[in-house]
C-alpha cells in the first residue's frame, strides 16, 4: 500500500550477497516456477518473498490507484472468511503475511512457523487467489486511501517527490502517485479491482526468494500449490520512460519552516559497463554515510542540514540520479549552492585516489554483513532476480567493485555528472530562490 522508496534498487545493489556463506539453490517446480532457496534449519520458521513484476505501473488508463487499492484489499477477506475472520486465522497461527506495491512490483512477504506451515500457506493462497473484494471492505479501505491522498498533499516530502517524478518522468506512470487521485480512487469499482488483480497476479512475472526451515522438495510443492492456479499471463508491461529533463529550480510554495528539497539529473542503467564505477563515484559524492563530500560540506562544515544524500535510482523502466536535502527557509539557497558546487567540482576534477580506495573498502567490506537473517536474505535474493542477476553473482560482485580505478571514476564523473542538468525541487518558503523559466 505504501509506495516503496525508489531507492530500493540502488540499495539492493550495495547489498547483493557475497562472500558470506550464502548457499543459494535454484528450485524449478513441476508447474514451471523458479525460486531461489537458502536452507537454514537452525530456527523452525521460514521467510518467503514473492514479487510480481509490473506493480502499480500496470494500472489501466483512467484507473490510477486500482492496483494499490486491490493490493490493500487482498487481506480484507478471502475465500469463506471476511476481513476479521481472515486476520484472526492468521493471528491464530502466529504467521505474518503482508502485501505491498510499488512502481515496479507487487510484493508478498510472509513468515511461517514450521509447526503450522501448511495452514499458513493455505491462508496466503486464499488471499492471492480468492480475495473477496466485499463491498464494505472496499468502502472502508477506500476511505483510508483517500485520507492518505489528502495527507500526502500536505506533506513536504511527498510534495517534493511527486513534483520531481512529474519533471523526470513526464507521461509515464512513474510520474504520478500510485495511490491515484481523489477522483480516480472515488470512481473505482469492484470490477476495476478484479481487473487490476488479473493484470498483476499472473505466472509470467513471478520472482521468489525463500529462506529457512524447508527443503527443495517441500518448497517446490508449496509454490505450485500456492501459485499454480494463477493465470498464465497478465497485462503487458509499460514502455520505458523517456527520462529527459532540464536543469533548474522548481519552487513549490508551502507554508512550513524548513524547505524540503529533491534534486535529480539523468541516471545510468544497471547493466551499463560503468555502473560500478558510478556507484563508487556516488559513494564518494553523496552516498553511503557521513563520510560523503556532501555530508562533509553541507552538514559537518556548515551546519546547513541534518542530512544530505544522493543515490542512483534505478527503476525497471527508467534511471535517474537523485538526492535530497532539507534546510531552514533562509538557509536552503546556500545548501543548494554548495551542492551545485560539489557537483561541478566532482565533474571537472574527479575524486582522489584515497576517496576511491576508501569507498571500495567500505563497499566490499559491508557486503557480507547484509546476510544476517532469513527475511533479509530472502529479500536480497528476490531483488537479484528482478534485476536479472545470475545466481552466482554474489561471488563476483566484490571483484567488480575492486576493479574500479580512480581514472575510471574521473572519466565517469565527467560523463555522468551534469551540473547544468541538475534540477532542484524546493517545497517551502525558500528565501532567494525562484522557479527558473522552462527552456
Amino acid at each position, binding site marked *: 500500500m505504501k509506495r516503496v522508496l525508489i531507492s530500493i534498487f540502488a540499495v539492493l545493489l550495495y547489498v547483493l550477497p557475497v562472500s558470506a556463506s550464502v548457499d543459494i539453490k535454484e528450485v524449478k517446480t513441476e508447474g514451471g516456477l523458479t525460486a531461489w532457496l537458502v536452507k537454514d534449519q537452525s530456527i523452525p520458521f521460514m521467510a518467503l518473498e514473492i514479487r510480481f513484476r509490473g506493480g502499480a505501473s500496470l494500472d489501466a488508463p483512467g484507473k490510477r490507484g486500482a492496483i494499490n487499492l486491490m493490493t490493500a484489499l487482498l487481506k480484507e477477506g478471502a475465500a469463506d472468511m471476511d476481513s476479521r475472520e481472515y486476520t484472526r486465522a492468521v493471528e491464530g497461527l502466529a504467521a505474518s503475511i503482508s502485501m505491498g506495491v510499488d512502481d515496479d512490483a507487487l510484493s508478498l512477504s510472509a513468515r511461517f512457523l514450521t509447526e503450522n506451515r501448511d495452514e499458513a500457506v493455505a491462508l496466503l493462497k486464499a488471499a492471492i487467489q480468492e480475495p473477496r473484494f466485499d463491498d464494505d471492505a472496499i468502502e*472502508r479501505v477506500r*476511505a483510508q486511501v483517500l485520507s492518505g491522498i489528502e495527507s500526502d498533499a500536505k506533506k513536504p516530502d511527498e510534495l517534493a517527490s511527486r513534483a520531481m517524478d512529474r519533471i523526470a518522468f513526464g507521461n509515464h506512470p512513474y510520474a504520478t502517485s500510485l495511490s491515484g487521485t481523489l477522483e480516480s480512487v472515488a470512481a473505482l469499482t469492484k470490477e476495476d479491482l478484479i481487473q487490476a488483480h488479473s493484470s498483476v497476479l499472473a505466472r509470467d512475472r513471478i520472482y521468489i526468494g525463500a529462506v529457512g526451515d524447508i527443503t527443495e522438495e517441500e518448497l517446490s510443492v508449496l509454490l505450485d500449490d500456492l501459485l499454480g492456479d494463477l493465470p498464465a499471463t497478465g497485462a503487458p508491461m509499460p514502455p520505458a520512460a523517456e527520462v529527459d529533463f532540464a536543469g533548474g529550480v522548481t519552487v513549490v510554495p508551502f507554508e512550513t519552516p524548513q524547505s524540503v528539497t529533491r534534486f535529480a539529473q539523468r541516471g545510468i542503467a544497471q547493466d551499463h559497463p560503468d555502473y560500478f564505477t558510478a556507484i563508487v563515484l556516488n559513494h564518494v559524492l553523496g552516498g553511503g*554515510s*557521513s563520510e560523503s563530500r556532501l555530508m562533509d560540506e553541507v552538514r559537518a562544515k556548515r*551546519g546547513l542540514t541534518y542530512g544530505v544524500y544522493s543515490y542512483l535510482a534505478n527503476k525497471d523502466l527508467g534511471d535517474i540520479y537523485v538526492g535530497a536535502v532539507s534546510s531552514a527557509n533562509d538557509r536552503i539557497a546556500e545548501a543548494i549552492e554548495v551542492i551545485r558546487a560539489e557537483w561541478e567540482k566532482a565533474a571537472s576534477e574527479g575524486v582522489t585516489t584515497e576517496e576511491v580506495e576508501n569507498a571500495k573498502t567500505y563497499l566490499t567490506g559491508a557486503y557480507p*554483513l547484509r546476510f*544476517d537473517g532469513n527475511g533479509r536474505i530472502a529479500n536480497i535474493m528476490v531483488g537479484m532476480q528482478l534485476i536479472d542477476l545470475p545466481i552466482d553473482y554474489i561471488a563476483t560482485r566484490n571483484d567488480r567493485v575492486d576493479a574500479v580505478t580512480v581514472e575510471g571514476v574521473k572519466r565517469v564523473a565527467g560523463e555522468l555528472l551534469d551540473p547544468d542538468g541538475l534540477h532542484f525541487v524546493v517545497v517551502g518558503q525558500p528565501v532567494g530562490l525562484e522557479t527558473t523559466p522552462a527552456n
Partner: protein
Amino acid sequence: MFRLTAIAALAALFPVLAGASDEVVTTFTLDNGMDVVVVEDHRAPVVQHMLWYRAGSADEPIGSSGVAHFLEHLLFKATDTMAEGELSSTVARNGGRDNAFTSYDYTAYFQRVAADRLGLMMKMEADRMKNIRLTENNILTERDVIIEERNQRTENNPGSLFGEQMNAAQYLNHRYGVPIIGWMHEMETLDMEDALGFYDIYYSPNNAILVVSGDVTPEEVRALAEEHYGKIPANPELPVRVRTQEPPQTAERRLVYRDARVAQPYVRRTYLAPERDSGAQEQAAALVFLSEILGGGTTSFLTEELQFDQQVALFTGSFYRPVSLDDTTFNIIVAPRPDVTLQEAEDAMDAALAKFLETGVDAEQLERIKFQIRADQIYARDDVDRIANRYGQALTSGLTVEDVQAWPDILQAVTEEDIMAAARDVFDKRASVTGWLMREEVTQ
C-alpha cells in the same frame, strides 16, 4: 544512507511483546562496574557493538533541554587521539556502519562491523567515553545541525508538534514532559559548558552497559572488554538517579492544536500509566495486553467498535511503552471519517472504552496474543540485534537481567482479570490528557 543520530523513543511507542531467548544470552559485570550483555548468533560473521549510558534527556539540568542529544552528536568529533570524524571513517573503512540515538532514559552508540573488528570498535568507543576534545566551532556548527534536525522532525510535522504539547500537558513535574530533542529556545543557547557538564557527570563505565550481539563468544567479549573498558576507573561521584516525580494528578486536561498543514484530524488520549518496575512487572504486563486487545489491529476491540460496527473512524490504535524508568503513558488514537466530528469521535471512543469495561476480555483473542508472543521468541532468534536492544533499553530503565528474563513468563501468566483490573486502574480521566489535532479554522 547517512548518519541519522536518531531520537529513539518517539519511534518506539509500540510495545516490545517478546521476551528474551535466554539460551543465547550471557551477562557479567567488569570490576569497574560496567555491565556486559552478550547475545550470540553464529550464522553470519557480523557483530553489533553497542554502548548504552544511563543518561537521557530526562536527566538533563533544567534550562538545557536537548543537551543529552547535543552531546551525542558531539561525540563524533575529535578526542585526544582521534581526529574529528575519524571514528566513523575508521568504521566505514572497515566495511561497517555506526550511529547513535538518544531517548528519555538513555543514550546509546553502536557499530555494526565484521566480527574480527570488535576490539577496534571497543578501543575507539572507550576512548571517547573520557577523551573528547571540542572546539567552539564544533559547538556552533553542530548546534545548527540539531536545530535543522528539530526543523525536520518536529517543526515541519504538525503531528509531532501536537505530541509535544500533549506530553507537556501530561507531565506536571517530570522531565518526560520536555521533548528529547529539546525546546527550540533552549537548544539555541546550548554551549560547551552545558555539553561537557553532562559528559563529565554521566559518561563513565559504572554508568554504562556494553551490549554485543552476533558472531562472538562471551569469553572473547570479556577479554576485549577488560582490555579496553576495564582500565577506565569508575566515577565515584556518579549521582544517584533520582528525578522529580509526578504529584497525584487530579484534573483532567484538554487541548486543541490547530495547524494548516493538518489533512487528517484525530483525537488522542493519553493516561499516566505505570511502567515495568524491577521485581514488579505484572501490572505493566497486563497493560501490554490491554493495548494489544484494544488497538492492536484489525481484530482489536476499538477497530471492531469504531471502524467495523459504528463506522465512525478511519483509523484507531492504542500503544503503551512499558520500558521506562518512571511513569509512562497509555495512548489511544481515533481518526474520524470525514463526516464525523472530533467531538463525535471522542464520544464514541469513550463509549467504546466504557463498553469494554463492561464486557471484558475475549478469551480467544487473549490466547491468540499469547501464542503470538511465544512464537515471537522463535522469530526473535533471526534478529539478535533486537534482543540486544531489548537488554540495552531495559538495563538503562531500571530493570535487571533477571527482570528481562522473567518477562516472557510474566506475560504468559496474565489473566483476563489482571487485564480488567489494570484497565480500571489506568483509565482515570483525572490523570489523562485529551487532545484534538485540527485543521486551521476556515475564515470567511
